[in-house]
């Protein structure tokens, strides 16, 4: 693969060779996969780690005294170490495994929300949240009597910091839950400032890092966050595994979310006691094979390096914005300064679904719809957008194919 604008030290051809699926054709055309923000493809290292587990070293964890169980427990728990290092957690016990970001947020909404928050306190989110960071707080509101506040987003697709500060001002916000990077605009939020302001006003902060952790190095200590969540399948890892990081003292104070094996201290019918964190929050047999896959994904990303990834993706995004700007009637949605490799757009005379289908016919996979951000769409006066999103394996050439294919869509429709 001949990449016109390689980032220094970043060999996209070699990276592509690590992803078996990228050699596929779709509808007779080479696959141009521009839907990584929905879910990323998996490198050979991840596939191999999962296969290796199932072929050579598998048993249930934590409760076995035999070799297979001990070794599988070691491997499962080693993922906790890898995630703790990835996020710069203080302590490995601050890492809780969940199914995905959605479950991680629901866990906090349930355990911190119902367990610690009081009726009348407020949760503050933003207009550009994914449904995963809206609906759990609505459900908390309806079940528990908390308030749900929403900070506005500007026309450029950035958080309206004045509105945000105003919504914090009365001191009744107990928790801010906000995205680190928008899955619609690609905008990075000024998360350090957001957190500082929240803390000044007595609120804890949950950061939805589902998109951000894929593209940027995250240091929860430097950010000052209280909760950070992400999902394995977007970080080139398996489905079925996600992460909640939270400060140890918060996890200690929170009641468990689900009950069952592995999360208990002791059980009697009258009364049970809970295991120490993080086990208190991991009821039942965990996603063992998936955790082991996630560790391989983190290792893969770390070996390439976030700096190289960020540089590659910044170059891709610049290239994409430049190419898309040349297409008549195409409008890119969101014009934030600080943005990553997610580009939403509309095209005059062509609905996003039709764009997606016509691109698909040309082998180009993009997403179309509300991107699980209906309130944001409504705010923008849109029904839907088409969205191209980039990963470590995306090439400048693929963006050229996207642009050329979009030209053909335009000509087809107008």
């Amino acid at each position, binding site marked *: 693969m001949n990449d016109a604008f390689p980032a220094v030290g970043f060999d996209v051809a070699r990276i592509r060779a690590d992803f078996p699926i990228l050699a596929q054709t779709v*509808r007779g*055309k080479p696959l141009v996969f521009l839907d990584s923000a929905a879910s990323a493809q998996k490198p050979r290292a991840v596939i191999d780690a999962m296969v290796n587990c199932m072929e050579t070293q598998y048993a249930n964890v934590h409760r076995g005294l035999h070799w297979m169980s001990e070794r599988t427990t070691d491997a499962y728990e080693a993922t906790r170490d890898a995630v703790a290092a990835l996020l710069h957690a203080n302590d490995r016990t601050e890492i809780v495994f969940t199914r995905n970001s959605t479950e991680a947020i629901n866990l906090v909404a349930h355990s911190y929300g119902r367990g610690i928050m009081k009726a009348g306190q407020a949760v503050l989110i933003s207009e550009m949240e994914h449904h995963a960071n809206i609906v759990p707080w609505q459900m908390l509101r309806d079940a528990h009597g908390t308030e749900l506040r929403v900070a506005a987003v500007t026309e450029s697709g950035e958080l309206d910091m004045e509105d945000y500060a105003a919504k914090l001002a009365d001191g009744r916000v107990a928790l801010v839950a906000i995205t680190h990077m928008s899955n619609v605009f690609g905008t990075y939020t000024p998360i350090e400032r957001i957190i500082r302001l929240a803390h000044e006003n007595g609120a804890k902060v949950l950061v939805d890092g589902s998109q951000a952790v894929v593209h940027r190095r995250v240091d929860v200590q430097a950010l000052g966050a209280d909760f950070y969540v992400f999902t394995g399948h977007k970080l080139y890892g398996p489905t079925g595994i996600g992460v909640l990081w939270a400060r140890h003292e918060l996890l200690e104070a929170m009641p468990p979310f689900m009950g069952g094996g592995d999360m208990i201290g002791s059980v009697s019918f009258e009364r049970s006691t809970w295991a120490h964190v993080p086990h208190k929050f991991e009821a039942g047999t965990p996603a063992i094979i998936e955790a082991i896959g996630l560790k391989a994904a983190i290792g893969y990303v770390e070996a390439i390096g976030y700096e190289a990834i960020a540089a590659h993706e910044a170059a891709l995004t610049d290239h994409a914005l430049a190419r898309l700007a040349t297409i008549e009637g195409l409008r890119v949605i969101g014009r934030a300064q600080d943005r990553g490799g997610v580009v939403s757009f509309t095209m005059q*005379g*062509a*609905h*996003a*679904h*039709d764009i997606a*289908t*016509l691109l698909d*016919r*040309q082998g180009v996979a993009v997403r*179309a*719809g*509300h991107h699980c951000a*209906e309130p944001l*769409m409504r705010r923008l006066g849109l*029904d*839907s957008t088409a969205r191209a999103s980039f990963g470590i394996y995306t090439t400048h050439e693929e963006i050229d194919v996207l642009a*050329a*294919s979009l030209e*053909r*869509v335009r*000509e*087809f*429709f107008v």
Partner: protein
Amino acid sequence: MNRPGVSGPGTTTLADDVGDLYQQVILEHGRNPRHAGRLTAFDASAKGDNPMCGDRVEVFVKYAADGTVARTGFEARGCAISIASADLMAEVVAGRAPADTRAMFETFRHMAQTGDCPDCDATMEKLRPLAGVHDYPSRVKCATLPWHALMAALDGKGSATSE
């Protein structure tokens, strides 16, 4: 449909590739629907809504004195397929009894899902251009959404979804 300038580096044009789905009649009805708009007077209406993609349609029905569907109008936000389907639907159901209309929906749904219409009469043949959606499972719902809304209106229900 094979227009100059649409061809890419390959040997087929985009129109060749998607001609089965985006037939000329769909593009036309999608662009210039004849039955779009809220009826000034109507007897029944219902909304339809596809939560997975955000498509919405509202269908308005005016009955004739004999209980047949006199006129149908719709307001929609959606893709070319769903708008063309709403527009073609409004055309074919005009003058039909509600029971007939329900039967037509079943026939149409089968066609959209399978591509086949073994017992299509001349009226139903007008919907044939939409049969190409059968190859695109998630687009089938675009084509059937207005019909779901129409069925809800005939049933006196306020809304329907096509998930």
